[in-house]
């Protein structure tokens, strides 16, 4: 099958790749752009480990075709830190031990950053339902939720 040339913007950089029309955005990010921070946990949109932001909208990269990224912007976990400065969410996740194995962490960070941009003062219930599409098998979510609530409070204070 002939391949399609896709031009897109990932984490602010203009990039291009050739992909089979059957390949997902996740396949393209991981295999063609070597951005392996986004993970495939299920391939069916149930686990959220591949969460990325496509033109401002939180999506599962495994449910988007690579060719759909044409002309759009994609934000992944690799773009959350600015240079060597971690985002407050990243710092709090380490501080609170909000990860054990760390496989769900990229997706949860991408999803949560998107939430806080929309809703800087979420309730615990809002956070829990926003993350209902991001499975974590290790932590029972307790420390994840605490890290997020603390980050949100700190970011509000910092204005």
């Amino acid at each position, binding site marked *: 099958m002939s391949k399609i040339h896709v031009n897109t913007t990932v984490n602010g950089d203009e990039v291009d790749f050739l992909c089979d029309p059957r390949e997902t955005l996740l396949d393209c990010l991981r295999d063609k752009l070597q951005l392996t921070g986004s993970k495939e946990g299920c391939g069916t949109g149930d686990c959220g480990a591949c969460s990325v932001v496509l033109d401002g909208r939180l999506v599962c990269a495994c449910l988007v075709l690579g060719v759909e990224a044409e002309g759009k912007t994609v934000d992944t976990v690799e773009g959350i830190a600015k240079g060597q400065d971690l985002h407050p969410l990243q710092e709090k996740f380490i501080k609170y*031990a909000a990860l054990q194995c760390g496989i769900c962490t990229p997706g949860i960070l991408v999803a949560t950053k998107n939430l806080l941009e929309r809703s800087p003062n979420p309730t615990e*219930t809002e956070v829990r339902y926003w993350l209902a599409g991001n499975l974590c098998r290790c932590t029972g979510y307790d420390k994840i939720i605490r890290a997020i609530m603390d980050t949100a409070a700190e970011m509000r204070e910092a204005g």
Partner: protein
Amino acid sequence: MALDDTKTKDFKFVGTRPERPDGVDKVTGRAKFGADMTAPGMLHGAILRSPHAHARILSIDTSKAEALKGVKAVVTRADFSTNPTFGPGLTGEPWNVLENVMAGEKALYDGHAVAAVAATSALIARDALKLIDVTYEVLDHVTDVDKAMAEGAPVIREGAADKSVPAGMHPNVVRYHDSGHGDVEAGFAEADLVLENSFKTEATHQGYIEPHACLGSLGNDGKGELWCTTQGHWYAQKMCAALLGLETSQLRVTASEIGGGFGGKTTVFIEPVALALSRKANKPVKIVMSRSEVFRATGPTASTSMDIKIGMKKDGTITAASGVFRLQGGAFPGAPCEFTAMCAFAPYALENVHQIGYDVMSNRPKQAAYRAPGSPMAAFAVESVIDDLCKELGLDPIDVRLKNASHKGTKASFGPRFDDIGLVETLEAAKAHEHYNTPLKEGQGRGISCGFWFNHGGETAVSLALSEDGTAQISVGTPDIGGSRASMALMAAEELGIPYEHIRCTVADTATLGYNEISHGSRVTYASGLATIKAAKDAVNKLCKRAAQKWGIPEDAVKWEDGCAVPSGANAGDFDPLPLAKITANMGATGGPIVGHFEATPEGAGVSFATHIVDAEVDHETGKTKIVRYTVVQDAGKAIHPTYVEGQFQGGAAQGIGWALNEEYIYGDDGRLQNAGFLDYRIPLASDLPMIDTVIVEVANPGHPYGVRGVGETSICPPLAAIANAVSAAAGVRMRELPMSPPRIVAALKAAQDG
């Protein structure tokens, strides 16, 4: 194993909560997990799996697949070794693993691998699978444990039973366990109330979010490299070598970061296949499982069917207890029936106890360990009956458990006498906890349960090398499945007396250290921790020797304090403390590199106990349950990094909630798994759970220098029972089958109503 050099107080580093050393890697996407590795010239592998639960493989025609452009190799069972060049031939568990990795004469379950392809892209490999023509003769199948033991059930494999099985049992019963002490019949006769009931639990999956993934490279010279997500890369090395007829040492295995295991990554599935494909294609081959493959072909727990009988006096004293535990472990021997039986009554000091376990084969995937394998199901059955006894006799469930609790010196239900244990302490902490003393709201039920797990030591090797600048690097052989690098660095810091941040802990490959057993049995903080402490002590002895040389005094006149060599007493001489970095700065000239080692099989892993308190609500109309409050109280021996200990407590509880309420393998009449995805196999979501409170009890384990007990597994032992007790109380009917999914609860409520 009593230790003469224990330290149980005045810690400087142990017990603090520093940030984990691999934290930045894991929040930036930099950490490399199983599927994140590539190699030049790499091919992609894919595996063809049986759609039948039980079928004879009459023929496999791979010619069309081989002819597809881009396909570089196709393998079937014929490409694996049944008679390795090195070793006595494949028998026992290695043969079972081979049979599971690639089917031989029969496909034994839906999802059983029958052939594999390597191609230049993952898409071509997937397309090629469709071109492989397998002719099956479909056979009768069985997936239920009770049915698999019954007369007339299809035989999975004739002659698989070992000598423990009594004569006259169905050939699917392959192992038998019988233990206990006293006279249970006499004990039941002494009781004021005897209750007897049957329970069932469905198989669940460990549910790690990272599917199995590996990258293998093997040449026709028998030399290979393997990168894989695993809980034990030495086991992977040994098993792959056996299955491929290689010399073990010629295969170097590197463990990737591991995206969850919980017991399910303690064996090999795709790794030998990738290596076989690589050998045939002469190129590196990567295989990544899909989620559906993970569900269909890897790791579920055993499903169970259990009968429990317990007698109690009016004052709460248990007079006798007996249990029969039937475990279905898939199409291979190995369901942990002895663990189920041995753990069942371990929390209680019983004069009369008897337990029987059956390991039964059926047409399901080969069961793999899952967090305290076998124990949670036993606790569910036993603690449910104890709960009913307490209710009928009007007794407080914690008081009754305290009255019967095992303690130091108790002859355990499984034989030996307990050393220092902390069950009573967990019960007392639970009783005093604000949770237990808070009144329930209307419609809520509260459940409590105890749980027990053995914990494990195992073969362990650690090296600790000092650098010229006075920093240290630890090489451990146990993959870090939940923050163990931090715990190792804390223990090394404690011994060396240098800051935590000056220590880097690396999970070494198989070429770097001696054999390290799998990260299982809650053994990492215990055994690798013990080995890290001993390796650090070995390095400290060498540092003291250098100081003695420098000072011109005997070695035994030098001791180590706060990161410095100092004279051991006034008579030893008057020298200024010599800091570690001063000794290492010129170690090349004073005798060479300083490295501490420890290699052993520590056997002092202390058993551990927990008590959980759960409040639940049940919607009587829909059968939906909600866990409204959860408290874990567990003995950690000594919490090296308390935050990660809490994390293990919470994670075990959350997995237990899933097992109790929703998770189950659902098989159709055709023997096919009906819910091989996270949409239909529902693990707990953030929106399902409350915060999970934790209480760390510390009763030192005499078998570890700092008193550590493993904590990873015990946390999943009480939840099934504690939740069943809470839900049964809230629903007003006793739930005896897991999961307590909405349809089961509605059915139970209706049955109670219909009376």
